[in-house]
C-alpha cells in the first residue's frame, strides 16, 4: 500500500473520527472555561478522572450511559475545586491547574489500587458498540467513517453545535463571554462574576470528564495508568488553534485526528526505516507548530487568566 492510498481507506477516516472524539469533548470543555476567563490546566487530570470514574461505574454494574454521567459529575467536581481556588481566591491559574491535575490523577490511581490491590491484567468492561445509522452507513468511504461510530462520537458532534448555540445565542452564553472579556462590564449589569465563572468551569470540566470516559468506555475497555498520555495538553493547544470558536475546535480536532491516524498507518508502512518514536512525537510537535502558526492571529479572551476582584481597578 502506498502512502497516498491510505487516504482513501474507510478505516483511516473512521480512525480519524475515533481519535478526534475525546479531543472534541476536551477542547470544547477547555474552550468554555477559557471563554469565561479561566485557564484550566486541570484538564489532563480531569479527563483521567472522567476515564476512571466512568469506567469504575460500569465495572461496578452501572450502565454505560450511567458511566458517562458519573464521568461528567466527577469532572464537574474537580472543576468546582479549580474554580473555587482560582476565581474567588484568585490563585495562580497555572499552579492551581497543575495541582488539580496532580491531585485528580493521583486520587484515581490511589482509588484504583484500593479497589484492585493485586491485579496483574486490568479488569475489562463491555464498552460502547458502534451504532450504525441505517442507509447513511452504506455510503462508500464516508459511510463507515461517519455513521458507524460509538454513540459518544455522535454526542461529541452534537456538543459542537450545542456549545456554539449556547455561547452565541443564549443569554447565559453572552454572560460567559462577557466575564471572559471584561468582568467589570458583567458586574455593572448586575451579574455575579464569581458564580458565572465557577459554573462555566464546572460545565467545561464536565465535558472534559465525558471526553475522558470516551477513552475507557469506547476506545478501550479498561483503565490503565498514564492512559491520557497528554491528550489534555493537546486540547489546550487545540483551543488556541481554534481561536476560541467551537466550530474551529472541531476542525482542529479532526485535523489532529487525521495526522495521528495517518502517522499510525505510515509507521506500519515505514517499518524499521524510521524509528517509531518519531511518529509518536508527531502529535506533540504538531500541536506546538499549530500554536506558533496561530499565536499571532488570535484575539483571545481579554480577561483570560486575570483574576477579578470586586471594586478593584
Amino acid at each position, binding site marked *: 500500500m502506498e502512502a497516498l492510498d491510505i487516504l482513501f481507506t474507510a478505516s483511516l477516516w473512521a480512525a480519524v473520527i475515533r481519535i478526534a472524539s475525546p479531543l472534541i469533548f476536551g477542547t470544547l470543555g477547555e474552550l468554555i472555561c477559557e471563554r469565561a476567563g479561566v485557564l484550566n490546566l486541570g484538564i489532563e487530570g480531569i479527563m483521567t478522572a472522567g476515564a476512571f470514574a466512568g469506567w469504575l461505574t460500569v465495572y461496578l454494574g452501572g450502565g454505560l450511559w450511567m458511566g458517562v454521567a458519573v464521568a461528567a459529575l466527577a469532572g464537574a467536581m474537580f472543576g468546582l475545586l479549580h474554580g473555587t481556588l482560582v476565581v474567588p481566591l484568585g490563585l495562580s491559574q497555572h499552579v492551581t491547574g497543575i495541582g488539580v491535575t496532580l491531585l485528580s490523577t493521583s486520587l484515581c490511581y*490511589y482509588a484504583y489500587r484500593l479497589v484492585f490491590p493485586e491485579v496483574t491484567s486490568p479488569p475489562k468492561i463491555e464498552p460502547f458498540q458502534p451504532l450504525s445509522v441505517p442507509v447513511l452507513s452504506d455510503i462508500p468511504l464516508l459511510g463507515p467513517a461517519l455513521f458507524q461510530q460509538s454513540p459518544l462520537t455522535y454526542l461529541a458532534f452534537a456538543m459542537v453545535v450545542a456549545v456554539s448555540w449556547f455561547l452565541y445565542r443564549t443569554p447565559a452564553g453572552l454572560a460567559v463571554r462577557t466575564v471572559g472579556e471584561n468582568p467589570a462590564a458583567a458586574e455593572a449589569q448586575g451579574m455575579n462574576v464569581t458564580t458565572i465563572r465557577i459554573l462555566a468551569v464546572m460545565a467545561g470540566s464536565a465535558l472534559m470528564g465525558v471526553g475522558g470516559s470516551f477513552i475507557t468506555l469506547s476506545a478501550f475497555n479498561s483503565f490503565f495508568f498514564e492512559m491520557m498520555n497528554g491528550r489534555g495538553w493537546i486540547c489546550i493547544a487545540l483551543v488556541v488553534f481554534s481561536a476560541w470558536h467551537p466550530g474551529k475546535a472541531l476542525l482542529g480536532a479532526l485535523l489532529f485526528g487525521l495526522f495521528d491516524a495517518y502517522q499510525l498507518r505510515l509507521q506500519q508502512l515505514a517499518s524499521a526505516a524510521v524509528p517509531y518514536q518519531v511518529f509518536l512525537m508527531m502529535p506533540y510537535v504538531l500541536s506546538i507548530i499549530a500554536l506558533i502558526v496561530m499565536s499571532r492571529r488570535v484575539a483571545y479572551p481579554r480577561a483570560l487568566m486575570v483574576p477579578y476582584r470586586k471594586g478593584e481597578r
Partner: protein
Amino acid sequence: MRLEPLEKRSTFRMIALPVLALIFAMAICAVLVMLSGASPFQVFGLMVKGALGSRFAALETLTRATPLIFTGLAAAVAFRAKLWNIGAEAQLYIGAVMTVVMGTGLLPLPWPILWPVLMISAMLGGALVLSVPTFLKTRFGVDEVVTTLLLNFVALLFVSMLLEGVLKDPMGLGWPQSKKVLADAVLPRLVSGKRLHLGFVIAILAAVVVWIIDRRSALGYEMRAVGHNAKAAHFAGIPVNTVLAKTALLSGGLAGLAGWSEVTGLKGNLTLDLSPGFGYTGIVVAMLAMLHPLGVIASAIFVAAVFVGADAMSRTAGVPSYIAQVMVATSLLSMVSAIMLTRYRVRWR
C-alpha cells in the same frame, strides 16, 4: 465574598497559615487512608518511621531529595520571573542524555576535569530544551505552559529512541539502557555502603548560589521585576526578553543538573525510568518553599520523606503508596491557598 489586601503581613499569619495548610492536607489524606480500612495514625506513624526512623531511612530520604532540590530550584527560579516552566521533566532527561553522551567514554578525562565538563554539558542540554519555549514565548507570544508540557512527551520519546538506537548499551542484554558512565564521572558516596552521594551536597550549594543570585545580583532583581510587572520593568528599561532568556538558561540548567546527578550519583546509566516525575514534583517543591531558594532544600526533603515513607508504609500496611502523591498534591493546593491568605483578608460581604 471579597479579598482585601492586608496592610502588613503579620508574622503570625506567615507561620500559622502554612502550618494549618499542611495539617489540612494531612487530614484529607487521613480520610483517604481510612477508606482503605487502615488506621491513619498507624499509617502516618509507619510513614514517618519509613522516612526518618532509621539512619538508612533518613539517608534514603536525602538521596530522594537530591533531584527534587534541583528541579525545585528550576521551578522556583522560573516562577519568580513568571516563566511557567512545567517542563523540568524534559530538561532533566536531556541533561541526563548529555551526561551519558559525554561521560561514557567520549572524553577519557580525570575526574577534576570530567565532572565540570559533564555538569556544564547537562546544564546546556537542559537550558537548550527550555530555550525553545522561551523563544517561542518572547518571539511569537506562544504560551510556554503548553509548549513545555508537550515537550515533556517529545523528550521522553526522544530518549526512548536514543536508548533503542545510538545510545543503546550493546552489553545491555537488549534492554533500552545506555552504557555506564566512566568511573571518573561517578560521584562518590557520602556514607560508604549507603546510596547518598555527593550530588546532595552539590544540590545544596546550587540552592545557596541561586539564593545569592536572587538576593544580591542585578539579574535576580531583574527576574523579580519582570515577574511582578513585566510592563513596568520594560518601561524602566529592563530588557524583559533578555531577562527571560537568562532565566530559561538558569532554570533549564538546574533541571539538567538533576539528570546529571541521578546518572552519575545514583544510577550510573540512563534508562527510561530515571525520573518518576521529579520534574513535576519540583513544581510542588518550589511552591511549598514559597519560591525561596533555601526553602527549596527543606521542602524537597519533606516531599522526599513523604514518598520514601509511603513506599515503606505500603509494603507493611498495604495502603497504596499513591497516597504519597495525593498528599503532595493536596499540600500544594492548600499551601498556595494559605500563601494567598497571608496577604489578603477574607471579607464575607
